[in-house]
């Protein structure tokens, strides 16, 4: 392992850890109430009182960013859970059963994947009422194909391993083969996918919220903040800068973390 690859992992880990700390702190403490308005102090530049300035309603941007981490992380976490659960069912069934089940399920997954992601999320969100929950479900469904493919691939590969055949030859049942002998070996690739999907989820949530179809006001969301800051771009550039920067850092952090884990796992690369 050369040090360049480890650096990727460490930068990713550090960024993600810092954001986690920020989120944890925001659960107990934010400098100002996230929805506390102060019309007199509208669009203040960053300073000692408001580190990242204030928005068009005089709300503290740092506080809103901090509360926004909760939204971002819950969207990331729960949508990855949905994607993983759905993807595992489809991918495991396709990879383990093979033959016609594989064909059928993977063509369905291909169809889902052929759809542009954000468009699919838009459709799902517009069918139902836009809210945090709907956003999470829509993004989760979006991730099912990625997980299904990774898990199917892992199953196909591991299913043929000698130790799986040997376990089968010794009389192990389906559940034992899947959960004891196959799943532990595909875990690392699933973790990498989860990490990459986590950052994608945050990005999609920001995009949906930016379009006004994701998280609804007054709940703080980085995408929504970007949207609101647009009108004041020339007057208060820091307003747009803060959520943009945090979206970038989060996505970068999780991507680097994912890449780092992948490199760590794949010693040949």
């Amino acid at each position, binding site marked *: 392992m050369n040090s360049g690859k480890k650096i990727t992992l460490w930068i990713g880990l550090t960024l993600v850890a810092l954001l986690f700390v920020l989120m944890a702190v925001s659960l107990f403490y934010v400098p100002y109430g996230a929805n506390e308005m102060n019309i007199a102090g509208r669009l203040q530049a960053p300073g000692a009182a408001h580190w990242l300035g204030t928005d068009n309603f005089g709300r503290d941007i740092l506080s809103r960013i901090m509360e926004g981490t909760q939204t971002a992380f819950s969207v990331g976490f729960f949508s990855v859970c949905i994607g993983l659960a759905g993807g595992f069912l489809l991918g495991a069934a396709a990879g383990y059963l*093979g*033959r016609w089940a594989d064909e059928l399920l993977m063509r369905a997954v291909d169809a889902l994947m052929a759809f542009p992601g954000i468009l699919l999320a838009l459709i799902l969100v517009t069918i139902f009422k836009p809210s945090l929950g709907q956003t999470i479900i829509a993004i989760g469904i979006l991730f099912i194909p990625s997980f299904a493919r990774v898990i199917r691939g892992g199953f196909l590969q591991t299913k043929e*391993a*000698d*130790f*799986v*055949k*040997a*376990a*089968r*030859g*010794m*009389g*192990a*049942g*389906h559940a*034992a083969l899947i959960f*004891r*002998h196959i799943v*532990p*070996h595909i875990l690392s690739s699933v973790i990498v996918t989860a990490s990459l999907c986590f950052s994608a989820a945050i990005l999609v949530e920001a995009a949906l919220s930016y379009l006004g179809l994701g998280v609804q006001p007054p709940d703080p969301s980085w995408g929504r903040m970007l949207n609101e800051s647009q009108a004041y771009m020339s007057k208060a550039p820091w307003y747009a800068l803060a959520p943009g920067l945090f979206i970038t850092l989060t996505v970068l952090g999780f991507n680097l973390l994912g890449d780092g884990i992948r490199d760590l796992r794949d010693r040949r690369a």
Partner: protein
Amino acid sequence: MLSAPTEAPPLLDIRDLRVELTTARGRWPVLEGIDLRVEPGETVGIVGESGCGKSVLSLSLLGLLPPAMRISEGEIRYEAGRLPREGEEAFRRIRGREIAMIFQDPMSSLNPALTIGEQATEMTRLHLKLTKREAREHAVSLFRKVGLPRPEALLKEYPHQLSGGMLQRVMIAIALSCAPKLLIADEPTTALDVTIQAQILELLKTIREEDGTAILLVSHDLGVIADMCDRIAVMYAGQVVEVGTAEELFDSPRHPYTQGLLQAVPTPAKKREKLLSIPGTVPALHERGAGCRFHSRCAYATERCLLSAPPVVRVSGAGGGAGAGTGAGALAATGAHAVRCWLAAEEGGLPHAAG
């Protein structure tokens, strides 16, 4: 049916087994007309080159054939009961408990993510419904039996911490853990070095003597087969071409292929001579014609060998003298020396290879 009179039914009785491979270009027989018996406590060897169907045969016994292959004809009887042709559940009760299998490469046959203990207790907990503690104690006693050092500590170790020979001992211990009546060993020593190979074969002999376990030993190594087996079946291109006791096959091989195999074994006596090899390779699935499958490589081949399939001829053994019994069953009959060759059907037969 021509068969030797036996009191008890054989432990394993394969009758006219045919396994087909389905491909986009059609269905090809991988195994054809396999007749083989294994008596309780007996060691039967299956020998042949790569690609002649040895492994497919051993996998078919446990229903472990790859999805593209299936048994299309014939049957496998285990203790006079028919083994199912398909059906995972029916096979699962037999696998590991009645018939256990040892695989070629011990290093890849154990799950690297689980400890030795977890894998060694899996089968007894499943088949014999032992508790975790009982299963561990059972595993420890088996580890002692197969000659593994510090068995208790081994349970907590992972496969990568052990050498190949130790892993094969672990595999054998696992295979023996439910006291199977038949042990299928598919090239059990191929992946190991020679000294370890001898130790593992010694261990298999001990098991056979102490537990009376019948062993079906699959190997391409005639030395291993000669050392271990009571009876030997020589396979070529998906067929059993000659079957007999170890003495019969080594002292008076009747099939040109068997003779060729024996001549290709290096021995100290042949040190200065050029080692004989059989020219050519095993015909591919779609290259097998109507005649004898060995004709393209056989020094004695005639036009007849090319055109029509040779009969199975019993050359000696229980139930009749030379040339007495032909047809299905002759190859399976216990104690019979039978061969699938036109030359053996004739008076005089194949000239014996000069020592």
